[in-house]
């Protein structure tokens, strides 16, 4: 079967196979196999494009097992645009092979907020009755029983993007974010349930037309020129990419309004004025960078900047290697996701017994289900900045 992946030839030839990406690829690091490496995947894409390779089972497996963390893009001295290559490839692959039921079902639910809400409430009850074994599903161990009614301000200055899954499963993170905004006197509104899913996971899994549809919906649901703050690294990354996904002026303007919440706060004067003169204690936290914050948004240093006035930030020794969550990756490739996570767990262990923080729901859930004590960085900030007596 000869198939074209419709890849940009210049992007393909830009890889000279030097191998400097290998240590930054989570799947190569767990398998030591070229077919699980960025340069290997690019060689196979090239093989397919040049008609030297059919889209065989092994080629598809190689391309399907990519987490798309884009650690290789950060590491590549020649600036190979791997993300574009694999994104385009995934889209073509989706029309050539069966997508697993788990993945299809998961992505479908995200687009149907009522089903998601109802299912989550049922799951939350079952969890309380101990009828769902822990770690059986890629969900938080304690899903909130009921939705949160957020208080919103009149005449808002910013919008907090609440998304879909995160709002239902990890609403405590949104509450923490809003409490931080409250305590420094920033007026806000939330995007809320009417806006729904940003399409990040669909885009990641190669369903670009669905992602584009979601992008159009989100853009039209959030007019105005208010900054849009995001506390999920994966959602933030795709919202910032709407401009290039849709290629319209409207989308580009929308994307320019999007900020990771940490990134926005550290540049806000009200935030800076509210900082304590000295660190209120000697607590240490381990910072685990979500790949979408580090390699896509490149806003990971802002997490440290935000936390440092309150706690000491400890770095992992794996130079930002992915934890294996990878959007829907842990649903689609559970075995490999677990092996990648095992490496991360060892790295966390080497950093000591401390709380871990990660600014993305996928990473939080994936690591929590392995028994890691984990919070969103904004939750840690909220603990300190809420309790005024701590730093006055």
């Amino acid at each position, binding site marked *: 079967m000869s198939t074209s992946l419709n890849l940009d030839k*210049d992007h393909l*030839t*830009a*890889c*000279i*196979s*030097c*191998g*400097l990406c*290998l*240590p930054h690829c989570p799947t190569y690091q767990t398998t*030591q*196999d*070229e*077919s699980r490496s960025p340069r*290997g995947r690019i*060689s*196979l894409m*090239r*093989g397919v494009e*040049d*008609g*030297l*390779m*059919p889209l*065989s*089972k*092994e*080629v598809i497996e*190689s391309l399907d097992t990519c987490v798309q963390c884009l650690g290789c893009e950060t590491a*590549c*001295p*020649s*600036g*190979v645009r791997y993300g574009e290559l694999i994104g385009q490839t995934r889209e073509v692959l989706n029309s050539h092979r069966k997508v697993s039921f788990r993945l299809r079902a998961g992505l479908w639910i995200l687009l149907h907020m009522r089903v998601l809400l109802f299912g989550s409430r049922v799951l939350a009850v079952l969890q309380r009755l101990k009828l769902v074994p822990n770690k059986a599903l890629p969900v938080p161990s304690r899903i909130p029983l009921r939705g949160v009614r957020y208080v919103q301000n009149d005449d808002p200055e910013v919008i907090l993007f609440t998304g879909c899954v995160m709002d239902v499963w990890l609403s405590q993170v949104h509450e923490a974010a809003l409490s931080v905004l409250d305590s420094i006197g920033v007026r806000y509104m939330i995007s809320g349930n009417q806006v729904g899913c940003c399409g990040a996971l669909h885009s990641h899994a190669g369903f670009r037309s669905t992602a584009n549809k979601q992008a159009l919906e989100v853009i039209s649901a959030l007019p105005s020129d208010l900054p849009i703050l995001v506390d999920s690294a994966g959602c933030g990354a795709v919202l910032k990419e709407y401009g290039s996904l849709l290629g319209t002026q409207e989308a580009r303007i929308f994307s320019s309004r999007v900020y990771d919440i940490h990134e926005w706060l550290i540049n806000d004067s009200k935030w800076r004025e509210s900082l304590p003169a000295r660190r209120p204690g000697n607590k240490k936290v381990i910072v685990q960078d979500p790949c979408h914050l580090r390699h896509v948004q490149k806003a990971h240093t802002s997490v440290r900047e935000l936390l440092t006035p309150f706690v000491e930030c400890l770095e992992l*020794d794996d130079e930002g290697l992915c934890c294996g969550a990878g959007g829907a990756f842990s649903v689609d490739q559970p075995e490999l996701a677990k092996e990648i996570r095992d490496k991360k767990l060892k790295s966390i262990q080497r950093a000591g017994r401390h709380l871990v923080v990660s600014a993305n729901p996928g990473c939080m859930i994936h690591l929590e289900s392995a028994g890691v004590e984990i919070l969103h960085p904004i939750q840690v900030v909220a603990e300190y900045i809420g309790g005024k007596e701590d730093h006055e």
Partner: protein
Amino acid sequence: MNRSRGNDQLFQELCRDIGTNRVHRDGASQLLYSRDGSAFPGGIPGVVCFPETTQHVVDCIKAANRHDRSFVPRGAGTGLAGGAVPCDAPLVISTTKMNSILEVNYEKRFAWVGPGVVNLDLTKSLTGTGFHFAPDPSSQQSCTIGGNVANNSGGPHCLAYGVTNAHILAIEVVLPDGTLVQLGDVDGHASGYDLRGVFVGGEGTLGIATRIAVKLTPDPPEIRTLLLDFMDVADAAKTVSAIIASGIVPAAIEMMDKRIVNVVEEFVKVGYPTDAAAVLIIEVDGLPEGVKIEVERIQSISLEHGARSVRVASSDEEREQIWKGRKSAFGAVAQIQPGYYLHDTVIPRTKLVEVLEAVYEIANRYELIVMNVFHAGDGNLHPLLVFDPQEPGVMERVLVAGEEIVQVSLDAGGVLSGEHGIGLEKKRFMEKLFSEEDLAAQKLLKDAFDPDGRANPFKVLPSGASCSEVNHLNQLPDGAWV
């Protein structure tokens, strides 16, 4: 012989002996393991094996012997001379899964490691112990210690610390007939000929290393990294000679010319001067007092020889970024053109100025872009000819220019390879450097280890026969990428 039927039998036996999941022969694996980091389009492996133990390697080699096949050892595939490119449908034996650090002995300052341990991973695992592994090839974050042994790899800090050979105490080797031997001794008590020294740099043509005892080097108490820039390449080259002539042997002296500095700066953004004709990175280490004196002397020598400015890195982070730039240089060239061909000749340091001039002249004459980034302290050049392989006729010019660069280096009293090895790519130049008698003697050595010619055939030594599947660089097949 019917290769495909033979392949079936061989494949089944390998699956039986080392496990199905460790043996691949699908088209994707064959494509991926057909080449390394070099410009060679590659042959086709018969079977790709991923041994995890010494016994697996013995089993692979015995299977190769039973089926009259050759084998090619392979590390991370970052080699630049085609050393891991398969010829004649061999078993490709990837040692990447043999990546455990097996024993660390701080008292005797050595460690036994698997051949698949990544060079930088070893040093990282020693963080805080006061030791490191000294050889630091630019690809150290990816390349394996097995590959370092095969190529007797160098690296910036080998100027003061010596190349890989000086850091290997003992090697457990599976010989090409499947026999397991140990060469060398961790206590340095090996008697008789130094076969360990012969094996290091053997490019996988003498057997496969399955365990390697490496020396641990104490971390220097003080390190200073200097970034010097020059408006004339010749001034930079003269400075290098002058520093060494003054009696100082820095830990490293690296040179990068304007073109390479520009692509590297685009990647690391550490503030390399992009308008300079050349920069030198000089590192001095040792006791703090000595380092201070050496830094001052290097500053004054370089200013006397035309340095525009001397910057001393003020933090570990700045040092690391400067080195990251240097070590990413090869990988960054695709910013300019998607193909490169480089040489690795070593010339006497005193001839740097004239040889560099000749290299630029040759590239100009053939209308090619040349980028120079190299270990200036020990005269190990890396002229990179970068080009677009799609451009008609460019390969002919690249090859002729490459040959002239080699000739200029040899005429200056140099040798073919400093650290990348001969592999497939440079064996055509071996006769320029060695006489017939020299080559015959080297062949006797190879035969002593590998009488049947099974270990990594068609590499290093020029021979009448050539690798039938590897298309020579100047006969690229349609659609091949370089």
